[in-house]
């Protein structure tokens, strides 16, 4: 699975993107976040308050109960501030 992090999520995670093998029991965004928290202190800090984090699967905004699969591109980032 390809993971992408942007803005302060990226800074806390310590990387902008990584490719990971997720355990088979991880089937939703929420479960993925739970698993990511356990991987490093940086990721634990990045995902401490998930109310401030948005998710996109394959470049489309999704909710936390959205399914994730091995070949997906999953991105995490704060609410956008463009324009």
């Amino acid at each position, binding site marked *: 699975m390809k993971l992408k992090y942007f803005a302060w999520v990226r800074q806390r995670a310590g990387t902008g993107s990584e490719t990971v093998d997720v355990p088979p029991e991880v089937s939703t965004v929420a479960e993925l976040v739970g698993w990511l928290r356990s991987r490093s202190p940086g990721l634990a800090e990045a995902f401490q308050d998930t109310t401030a984090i948005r998710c996109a699967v394959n*470049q489309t905004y999704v909710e936390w109960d959205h399914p994730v699969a091995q070949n997906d591109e999953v991105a995490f980032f704060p609410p*956008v501030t463009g*324009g």
Partner: protein
Amino acid sequence: MSVRVQEAAFDVAVEMAETTGGDTSIGGVAMFVGLVRDLDPHADAKTVSALTLEHYPGMTERQLESIEAEALQRWPLAATRIVHRHGRMEPGEPIVLVICCSAHREAAFEACAFLMDWLKTKAPFWKVEDTDDGPRWVEARAADDAAADRWAKPEC
């Protein structure tokens, strides 16, 4: 239909000429240019010396194209253009340009305001400001969400 994400600045007159493309059915061109301000409008109004815009390459273009397609469906537009910059910019520099051309000015104005409201809430860009206290991520404004929401409701 035309969307670009780039580091370089843009010339409004050139962009407008390319967008209208000599189409003489166009009676009105509404445009909006967002500029970097030197004061953080949020919270405690720090002086901003520079702004860096990070984005999500790939998703940004998809999102802008989808927003633009929606505007073209909702209003009778002859042509539209969105140019959004990323990277480092100083106060006074342009960040974003939206152009909407229509036979009638009402459609051009409304579509332009619609696109800006959606850009602010849907386009995957994030701003970090260099302030007196160091770099700081700009937080999303509730007012921007409210502005975008008004397009989802029936007119009062």
